[in-house]
C-alpha cells in the first residue's frame, strides 16, 4: 500500500533578520521502504530523528523535498490541496503526538469530526462515532464531556477513536502512549493490536521506546533522518488480558 523511494525532507530555516544564508536541516534522508496492506509497523528512533516528519509525509500532510511516495499506487506529490484533503479524510486516520482535540466540542462531536468533512449525515456520524469509541474502549458515560474534563489517557483514546471513525485503511499513530502510564498505555496498545488482528488495518506506530515498538510485527529504526535497520520483530509482545 505504501511505496517510498528515496524520500528526503529538507527544512530551510530562515533566521530572522540579516542576510545570513538559510540553515538547512535534513529531517529525513533518502528513506526507501514499502509497507504492505495489513502490516503493523513500528518506526523507532531517538528524539529529533525525523519520525514525526516521516509520519506527516506518509499521512499526506506534507510533501517530500525529494523522492517519490506512492500511496495505493498513486504519486502523492502530483496531487493538489483538495485531493490530499480527500485522501486524508478517507484513507488515513491520525493519532497525533499532542492529541489535538477541539476544545469546544464534546467527545462524541470530536470523534465524528472527520465524517462531517466526508459529508455524512448526523445519524450516520453519531453511530460511527459510538462504534469507534467502543473499539477504543472509551467509557460511554463520558461521551458528553469536553476534552478539558478528561484525563490524558481518556483524551488519547478519544484521539484514537477519531482516527478510526472513517474506517481508514492506514492508521498513523505518533507516540500514542507517550503521555500515559504503563497500564493505560497497554490498554491503548491492546486497542491497536485488536484493530490489526481482527480488522486487518495497516498500522504505523511511532515511538522512541523499544518496549513499545516490540508490539509491532516489524520495526524500522531511524536515526538522524536515516533508516538504519528495517526488519521483522522476532520478540513480538502481545497484550493478552486487559
Amino acid at each position, binding site marked *: 500500500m505504501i511505496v517510498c523511494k528515496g524520500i528526503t525532507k529538507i527544512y530551510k530555516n530562515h533566521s530572522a533578520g540579516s542576510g545570513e544564508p538559510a540553515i538547512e536541516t535534513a529531517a529525513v534522508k533518502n528513506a526507501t521502504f514499502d509497507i504492505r496492506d495489513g502490516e503493523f509497523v513500528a518506526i523507532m528512533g531517538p528524539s529529533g530523528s525525523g519520525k514525526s516528519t516521516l509520519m506527516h509525509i506518509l499521512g499526506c500532510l*506534507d510533501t517530500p523535498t525529494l523522492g517519490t511516495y506512492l500511496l495505493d499506487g498513486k504519486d502523492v506529490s502530483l496531487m493538489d490541496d*483538495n485531493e490530499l484533503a*480527500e485522501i486524508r479524510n478517507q484513507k488515513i486516520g491520525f493519532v*497525533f503526538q499532542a492529541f*489535538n482535540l477541539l476544545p*469546544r466540542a464534546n467527545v462524541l462531536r470530536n470523534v465524528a469530526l*472527520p465524517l*462531517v*468533512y466526508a*459529508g455524512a449525515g448526523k445519524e450516520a456520524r453519531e453511530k460511527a462515532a459510538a462504534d469507534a469509541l467502543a473499539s477504543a474502549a472509551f467509557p460511554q458515560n463520558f461521551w458528553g464531556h469536553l476534552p478539558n474534563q478528561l484525563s490524558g489517557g481518556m483524551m488519547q483514546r478519544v484521539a484514537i477513536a477519531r482516527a478510526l471513525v472513517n474506517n481508514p485503511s492506514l492508521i498513523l499513530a505518533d507516540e500514542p502512549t507517550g503521555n500515559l502510564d504503563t497500564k493505560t498505555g497497554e490498554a491503548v496498545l491492546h486497542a491497536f493490536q485488536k484493530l490489526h488482528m481482527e480488522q486487518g488495518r495497516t498500522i504505523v506506530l511511532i515511538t522512541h521506546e523499544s518496549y513499545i515498538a516490540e508490539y509491532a510485527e516489524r520495526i524500522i529504526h531511524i536515526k538522524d533522518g536515516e533508516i538504519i535497520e528495517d526488519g521483522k520483530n522476532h520478540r513480538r509482545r502481545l497484550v493478552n488480558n486487559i
Partner: protein
Amino acid sequence: MNSSDLFQETYSALLANKARSFLTILGIVIGIASVIAMVSIGQGAQGTIQTSIEGLGSNLLTILPGIVQPGRGIVSAGRGTAQTVKNEDAESLRAIPDVLYVSAEHQRRFQIISQAGNNTNSTVIGATAEYVSVRNVSMDRGAFISDQHNRSMARVAVLGPTVAGDLFGSDDPLGKTIRINKINFKVIGILKAKGSAGFFNPDDVAIVPLTTMQKILAGADYLSTIAVTVSDKDKMPEVQARATELLLERHRVAEPDFSIISQADILGALTQVTTTFTIFLASIAGISLLVGGIGIMNMMLTTVTERTREIGLRKAIGAKNKDISLQFLAEAVMLTFLGGVIGVALGWLVAVLVSQFAGIATSVSIQAVFLAFGVSAAIGIVFGYYPARQASLKNPIEALRYE
C-alpha cells in the same frame, strides 16, 4: 459540511467568546442603527414637504412675473419688481381648454391695526371669488370675497386665523373694523386653519377684493400671481404649454418675462434637496458602519490566529480549503447579520423616539430595512473574506505546530 453543521459550528465558536462577539456586533449595530435612523429622518422630511405641497392644491399651475426657477429662487427680475403679469392675462387664460379656475392675486405686506390698537404685519392678498376653489381654503365663519365685492371695490376683509388671533384675541372679529394701511375694512369672514406649509404660513394672511387691493391699497395694475387649476393632472403639461404660448403672444416677447410653475416642478426641486440631505446623513452613518466592518475584520484576524491549531487539525482530518474559509466567513456573516437585525430594530426605535419627542417626522421604509440587511451581510463577506482566506491557506503542518 452541510449548512446545519456549519451553523452549529459558527454558533458555538461565537458563544465561546461572548464578550468579544458582543462588542464586535455592537459596532455593526451602531452603524446599521444610525443608517436606519438617519435615512428615516431624511425620508420623513421628504414626506412632510410632499404632503404640504400637495395640500396647496395638486392640479395647480402658478404663473409668476419674472423668471423664477423652483429650488433656485428668482433668477432675474425679482417677484417684487417684475410687473409683467396683468389682469387681462388672467382673463385670457380662461379661454384655454381644461382650465377650471383662474385666481388672479396681488399680494403685499401691510401693517394691520384693530380698533383696540393691536397690530400685526401680515401678508394682504387681493383676490377674487375663485381664490377659494384654487387655493383649497375653507371658511370657519362668515363669507369669502364675492364678485360683487370686487365690482364695487368693497372695503371688506377675510382674516386668516393667525391674523384674527393677533388682532382680536378671543373676541369675535366678525363685523368688526380693521385698518390696513390707514384704510378701514370690515371683517366679513374667518378662514379655517391650514397649518404652515414650511416656508409660507397660509393662516397669517388677510384677504381683500383684488380691485380694492390694486386701486386703493397698492395703487398698481399688475398681479403678483395667477393661479390656475386644471381639470386633469394629465392635462397639466398641455395647459402649461398653451398658457406659455398665449402669454408670449400677449406680451409680444420672444423670451418669457414670466414663469409658469407646476406643483410637479416644485415637488421635484424640493425632492432633490431632501434626497441630497438624506444621502448626506446616510453617508455620515455609513462611516460608522465602515468602522464596524473594520472591527469585524480585526476580530476575525485575531480569531484565525488563535485557532491556528484547530485549523491545522481540521485540515489534517480532511477539511478542504473551502471548508475552512466557509467556516470563518460564516462567523463573520453571522456577526454582521445579528448586528444588522439588532441595528434595524434599534434604528427603528430611535426613529420612533425622534418623531415622538423631537417632533421631527420620520419614516422607516421597507427598502431601507432590506438595504440595511443586505449591507450588513455584504460587510460580513467583504471584511470576513481576507481573514477567512488567511485561515484556509495555512499549511496544515505549520498550523498544527503553532504555539
